[in-house]
């Protein structure tokens, strides 16, 4: 009799857990899917195997930059942050993030540190050095879930980002959502349309033959629909990036990823 009661209690708990899991699932219409799942076995292997992933060269460069001082008087990243493996663990999962009232992307925060703490000039977007530092920091979050949440401080930016995501733009008059939300999993030309989650940036894109930031990828889509591209490092970019990261919350980071 007791055994039976215990069993039914377990059944009840299981049922409760499943309901809770469904309720907590971030996307109600479909399951989140990394575009990693759409890649060929060769490209998957290239991302997973560090001896094949070309992005590891940037990580190596990033490690030297982390220790480098601009001049004898200034500090290196390591002077304040110490061991990158400890201090930067999980950091990339939280960006973009509101810091001192300003929405800051990971790249923006690196440049902020350079200007204020290191008294060094800002690094240009898509420059080798900025990509190297971003890749090094993002690598420390590999496998960790994206943890961007809605907070009272980022609420406004998140809402604006969502509006950009749903706003039609360009001569083709398409929004991000029309492809990456409504038609994800269908085909555009010969390729499957991914859900567009920024969980592997910076990525080594084979088409680019180099590493690139999420903003480069977003500008890519904007030029594809023949829209005026958001500027690198602009607040619009940061807001859109924030919404995308929030939309991908809970997904494990793959940085630095490889994409075709």
């Amino acid at each position, binding site marked *: 009799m007791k055994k039976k009661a215990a069993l039914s209690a377990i059944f009840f708990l299981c049922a409760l857990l499943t309901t809770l899991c469904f309720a907590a699932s971030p996307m109600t219409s479909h399951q989140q899917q990394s575009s990693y799942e759409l890649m060929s076995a060769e490209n998957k292997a290239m991302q997973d195997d560090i*001896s*094949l992933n*070309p992005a*590891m*060269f940037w990580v*190596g*460069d990033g490690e030297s930059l982390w220790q480098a001082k601009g001049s004898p008087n200034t500090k290196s990243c390591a002077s304040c942050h110490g061991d990158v493996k400890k201090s930067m663990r999980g950091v990339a999962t939280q960006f973009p993030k509101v810091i001192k009232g300003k929405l800051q992307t990971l790249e923006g925060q690196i440049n902020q540190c350079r200007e204020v703490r290191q008294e060094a000039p800002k690094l240009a977007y898509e420059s080798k050095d900025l990509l190297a530092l971003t890749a090094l920091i993002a690598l420390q979050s590999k496998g960790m879930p994206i943890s961007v949440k809605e907070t009272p401080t980022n609420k406004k930016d998140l809402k604006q980002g969502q509006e950009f995501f749903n706003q039609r733009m360009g001569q083709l008059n398409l929004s991000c959502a029309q492809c990456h939300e409504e038609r994800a999993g269908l085909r555009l030309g010969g390729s499957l349309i991914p859900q567009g989650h920024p969980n592997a940036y910076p990525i080594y894109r*084979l088409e680019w*033959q*180099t590493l690139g930031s999420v903003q480069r990828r977003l500008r890519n889509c904007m030029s594809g629909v023949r829209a005026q591209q958001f500027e690198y490092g602009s607040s619009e970019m940061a807001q859109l990036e924030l919404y995308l990261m929030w939309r991908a919350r809970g997904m494990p980071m793959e940085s630095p990823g490889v994409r075709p």
Partner: protein
Amino acid sequence: MSKTSRTSVTMPAQAKKGAIIEIRAIAQHDMESGFRYTEGGKIIPRDIIRVFTCSYNNAEIFKADFYPGIGANPLIIFTTIATESGMLEFKWVGDDGYEASNQARITVT
């Protein structure tokens, strides 16, 4: 002033005599084809790796010529037979004085 870059070699550190071993060698290089133009219409000069060689205890066992059609950060995967313990040396030579090298030790039992 000669240029160089990061390279990485992956191969087993130990092997049985006569076994086939796989070697992966990748070099960081833009492989600028020489066919592209800047936004201003000026041609970007060719800057590629020309030759890759691998020697096993000073005997050349693998060589590849590279051409402008090869993409950035070229990866070469090839095999050889583990004949004796010793050193494998890898060398990349290219345009504009580019030179990079790497080495790996193998113990054959």
